[in-house]
């Protein structure tokens, strides 16, 4: 089986004044269809860069990123927009719902850009809202909802286009622990339904909910394995030190 997401020696450099910041340093991993992967790291570890590249919001400076076998690095802006639309469902920390639109209008945005007819996308958006338990609130504005409910709307929006990958960027970051657990539960449900979920977080206790953990530090992968393995949540400094000690 071909991997859905494949990073081959991906590097990302940002010019910062005279010097260059290395945000991703030869990162290589593969994610297969149906996996639930958490990409973990502290701030500055390169996880945001990773998420931007996986999400096709950015392209690697060096190396190759294959999404479903396609080389994203070679694409132009329009092609990237199309890939985001068709293959990726985003869930953001701040939900990023559009405040002037009601829930169903928010959820149908990806379908609008995919060129789905108005009638069909209304139906699909209503269905997606029902799936996250907000079917009766479709006329409401996002601001009339609690944080947890808003995040559920954004999950509905991520799912409505049947994307290949659900990309969740700190999805519980703005929520209290109880609603955070609820949202994580939903991600686990999605995984058990066969969706591929990539979770980006700095929080180990969240990361362990995933099936597999990729831990980043200073732009490098320092752990890639099952979340229940002994090394998965060990302090990254120790892990890093150990790994670097044995080249």
């Amino acid at each position, binding site marked *: 089986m071909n991997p859905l997401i494949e990073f081959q020696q991906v590097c990302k450099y940002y010019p910062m004044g005279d010097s260059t910041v290395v945000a991703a340093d030869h990162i290589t991993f593969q994610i297969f269809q149906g996996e639930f992967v958490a990409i973990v790291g502290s701030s500055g570890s390169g996880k945001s860069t990773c998420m931007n590249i996986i999400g096709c*919001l950015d392209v690697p400076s060096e190396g190759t990123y294959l999404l479903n076998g396609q080389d994203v690095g070679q694409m132009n802006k329009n092609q990237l*927009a199309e890939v985001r639309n068709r293959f990726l469902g985003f869930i953001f920390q701040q939900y990023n719902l559009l405040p002037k639109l009601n829930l169903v209008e928010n959820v149908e945005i990806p379908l*609008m850009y995919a060129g789905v007819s108005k009638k069909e996308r209304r139906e699909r958006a209503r269905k997606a809202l029902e799936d996250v338990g907000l079917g009766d609130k479709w006329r409401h504005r996002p601001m009339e909802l609690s944080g947890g409910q808003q995040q559920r709307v954004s999950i509905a929006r991520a799912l409505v286009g049947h994307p290949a990958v659900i990309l969740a960027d700190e999805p519980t970051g703005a929520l209290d622990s109880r609603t955070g657990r609820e949202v994580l539960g939903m991600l686990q449900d999605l995984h058990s339904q066969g969706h591929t979920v990539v979770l980006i977080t700095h929080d180990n206790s969240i990361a362990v909910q995933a099936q597999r953990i990729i831990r980043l530090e200073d732009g490098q992968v320092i752990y890639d394995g099952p979340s229940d393995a002994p090394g998965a949540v060990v302090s990254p400094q120790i892990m890093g030190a150990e790994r670097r000690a044995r080249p």
Partner: protein
Amino acid sequence: MKLTESLQLALKNIVSSKVRTLLTMLGIIIGVAAVIVIVGLGNGLETYVTDSFASMGTNTLTVSVMSRGSTRSLDAEDMYEIVAENNQFLDLCSPTVPMMGYVKIGSETVSTTSSTGVSEDYLEIAGMTVASGRGLQYSDMITRSKVCVIGAYLNQAYFGGNGVGQTLRVGGQSLEVVGVLAQKGDTLEEGGSDDCLYLPYTTAERISGAASSYTVTMRDENYIDESIASLEASLYKIFASDDYYTVTSMAEMLETMTSMINILVGVLAGIAAISLVVGGIGIMNIMLVSVTERTREIGVRKSLGAKERYIMQQFVIEAATTSALGGIIGILIGDGLSAVATAVISQISEEALTVTPTLGAVLLAFGISVGIGILFGYLPAKKAARLNPIDALHYD
């Protein structure tokens, strides 16, 4: 994503911030309304001038003879001969002798009435008809009859509608009213086109001196230049110089007047159109602010798969819709103001000048306002479309 959907999105955004949109549109509203009123005013003015010329007859030529001191002279007989000579171009002829004295009716002096000595053909030349009594006749000219026809105003105001058979005095000469003219103007008013009096030119010449100007009609208005040339050639033969006479054509005067009005209206409309440009800049300014405010929205839309051209389309259409809406409001206000202006003008000047906005001006104003929206919406839209989605998503 279809255009109609972009339009719906744009309308939604416009409706959600009414006050701001209204202020944004204000420049366009004022500009469009001003252009429509000014063009309408110009149209009204042109119609008014054309109508007043038409009532005098655009197929008439006016011959003025100067310098009576010259040995070479021209009297009414000569003029009739000239017209007869050139009868392939010229038709009717009437001397016009303006009377200096006031009209006196009983003990009252009427200072506003214009009294003119004319021939029996003049009423036809000027397109006037007799309402009661008779017009001037050839026999009146030969016998220097002491008769006159009067306008509807004099008849109504001084003779209670029964002027025929009454007498009045002009420049000391007692005249019998033999006819009353049909009403010409919309209203009977002092000094208006119905406040007039015509007497035989032969009678008038005895009081005011020989005729120095003549009104001649052309057979065909399409041969203005030829008619003038033949008339001038004959006059030149008599005077042996072109310093002593002038020939003016009503049609040419009308043309000159009309082109002057058009230039005036063009300049005024141009000044009003500056407001449209200012309005466009206002729209651009607000759209730029709007792009900054909605940076996050743009980021979200991009992350969900919006291509640059969709973002671009959304903002351009929003600007164009705002501007077009301003245009429509401006057109309505302009039409309203035109009606008000018509009412005010008729109140102040008692002249019937109708401010009529043309369909062309309305369509042009609408087109220009949409165009301005697109033109000035382009830059902000480009800025929005070019935003980097990552930066846009993290913008606060």
